[in-house]
């Protein structure tokens, strides 16, 4: 079984990414739930690249892609799109939660100021 240089390069980069993501999770620089998609994509690319001799024929006959590495890029691209959409979704949620929290801080600070004033008046009496 022999691999061409491109396949080896892709495998190497994807493997490096996989290890980097694992290391970031280990150091708590990345939460497990956000690392999942990155692991699936980088791991998937490694598996696809290594399994290429078995897949070449399938990709060519079933998908009509004459240059097999572009099938690999397509798979990676779809994964990235999913990750980015997921990130936008998370930003939307966080923005909303952040807004609600900021509003509450403002309202509570106001109540606190009023209570402090009342307390000061009571102490003076």
């Amino acid at each position, binding site marked *: 079984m022999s691999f061409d240089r491109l396949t080896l390069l892709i495998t190497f980069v994807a493997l490096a990414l996989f290890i980097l993501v694992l290391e970031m999770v280990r150091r708590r620089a990345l939460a497990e739930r956000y690392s999942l998609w990155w692991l699936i994509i980088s791991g998937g690319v490694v598996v696809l690249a290594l399994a290429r001799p078995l897949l070449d024929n399938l990709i060519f006959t079933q998908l009509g892609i004459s240059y097999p590495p572009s099938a690999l890029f397509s798979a990676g691209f779809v994964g990235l799109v999913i990750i980015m959409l997921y990130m936008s979704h998370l930003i939307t949620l966080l923005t909303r939660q952040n807004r609600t929290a900021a509003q509450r801080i403002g*309202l509570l600070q106001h109540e606190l100021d009023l209570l402090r004033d009342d307390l000061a008046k009571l102490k003076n009496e």
Partner: protein
Amino acid sequence: MPQPYQLPDNTRLLVVIPALNEEESLTRVIGNVNHAVPGADILVINDGSTDNTAKVGKAAGAMVVTLPYNLGIGAAMQTGFIYAHEHGYDFMVQVDGDGQHNPDEICELIPHLVSGNADVVIGSRYIEDRGYITPAPRRAGIIILAKYISLLTRKPYTDPTSGFRASNRKAIAMCSRIYPSDYPEPEALMQFHKANVKVKEIPVTMNPRYGGQSSITPIRSAYYMIKVMLAIAILTIRRRPKVFS
């Protein structure tokens, strides 16, 4: 000066003034509101101002809620709605901090809520020509928005961007839960329509700003129009919000 407006017995009115760096005009606005509706509570939402807006507001006798950083007019207004809802106010009026709205006309908004004719009353600059001059490009934008919203809601609107509005409990409850962000006024109209909140426009007179800077620059206007029209279009296909009573 017109006569101060006496609220009906046992009704509580909150006047909310969203303010971003309005120290120059705030004292005058609060003074005018106090004179126009002596029985109302006044709440300034200080939306992350970098000047003395909070201090000036308190000195003028208003309550001031200071947001920890600038959240935008929509979120600032919603803070007012949350306050009104949680403190059980019957009515809430929003008045801009820059002096464009005429607090004496609060007395023209409120009776429509008292009589139950409407859940939200909007002061429109364009029902009658009362000499308010709008720059032509902005006027064109407002007309497009008005026609667009009128078409989608099948109700006539003339001034969808007017921020001079009064709301009753039903509208306050809804807006405290869901309120659009950025420039919220036109989107809120669509939201009212979806929630069966009755909206009424009445003619008012608006002034030029006392001081400070308008938040709408020519560069942002195009982006604003597109964003608002998209948001409104999406609202028409969004699930209908529950009506809170």
